[in-house]
């Protein structure tokens, strides 16, 4: 019997869901909700709109899951769906949205303010990330963007899997301990 090592827990849940485990599907939706929400928020002017698009994205993700190979990185595919759903939504909005001329400035200002808040969150995280050692930043990117497991990352940077795990955990602790990032996390933790 061969043991399949999945690149991340989401991929493992996906494989279990494809095999008919509906509980894994629910757990997967819970895990993906945060990631998708943050991606689509970049395109929306309110968090309510982002939540609606997030639901739409999750539906499309689940519809397309039978075509996905769980052993390949899942995140680029999810990014593409989130982006496409958001762009479709923006096009739809631009067709149906009519703003009275007298409130154009006010509306645009409010949307720009929201964009600033979201971009501000990402900027805070980037700033906190910049305070980490370059190797820790690289490890986080390999883990959470390229979705490599600890052993694969270790092979790339010439460290043991256990050492990679500890460094990533400490790096996340440092990010979470950053006062600015902490305030964003506390603000958003209700989602």
């Amino acid at each position, binding site marked *: 019997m061969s043991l399949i090592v999945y690149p*991340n827990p989401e991929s493992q849940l996906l494989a279990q869901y494809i095999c008919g485990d509906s509980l894994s599907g629910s757990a997967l939706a819970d895990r993906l909700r945060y990631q998708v929400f943050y991606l689509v928020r970049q395109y929306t002017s309110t968090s309510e709109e982002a939540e609606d698009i997030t639901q739409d994205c999750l539906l499309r993700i689940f519809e397309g899951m039978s075509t996905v190979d769980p052993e390949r990185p899942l995140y680029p595919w999810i990014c593409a769906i989130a982006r496409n759903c958001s762009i479709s939504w923006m096009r739809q909005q631009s067709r149906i949205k009519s703003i009275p001329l007298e409130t154009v400035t006010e509306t645009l200002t409010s949307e720009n303010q929201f964009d600033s808040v979201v971009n501000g969150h990402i900027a805070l995280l980037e700033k906190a990330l910049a305070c980490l050692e370059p190797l820790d930043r690289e490890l986080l*990117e390999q883990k959470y*963007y390229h979705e490599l497991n600890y052993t694969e990352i270790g092979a790339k940077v010439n460290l043991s899997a256990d050492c990679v795990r500890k460094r990533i955990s400490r790096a*996340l602790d440092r990010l979470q301990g950053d006062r600015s990032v902490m305030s964003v996390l506390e603000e958003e*933790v209700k989602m």
Partner: protein
Amino acid sequence: MKCEQIGRKLQSYVDGELTDPQLLERFEIHLTRCESCHRSVLARRKLVGMLKAMFGLQREDSTVMTPL
């Protein structure tokens, strides 16, 4: 299970690496009873979600996305 033990296992839990069923059960029972640890798990998941979004957005312009 005590809060300190939860803190030590937090990352493994968020990464889905707590595979020992008994340990996982004790961990999750603690989360249902301890608001502070529950919030720590939510915050860590949120942080990981933000990181993924940030890395994804940074590469959005330079990566060709797979069409649906």
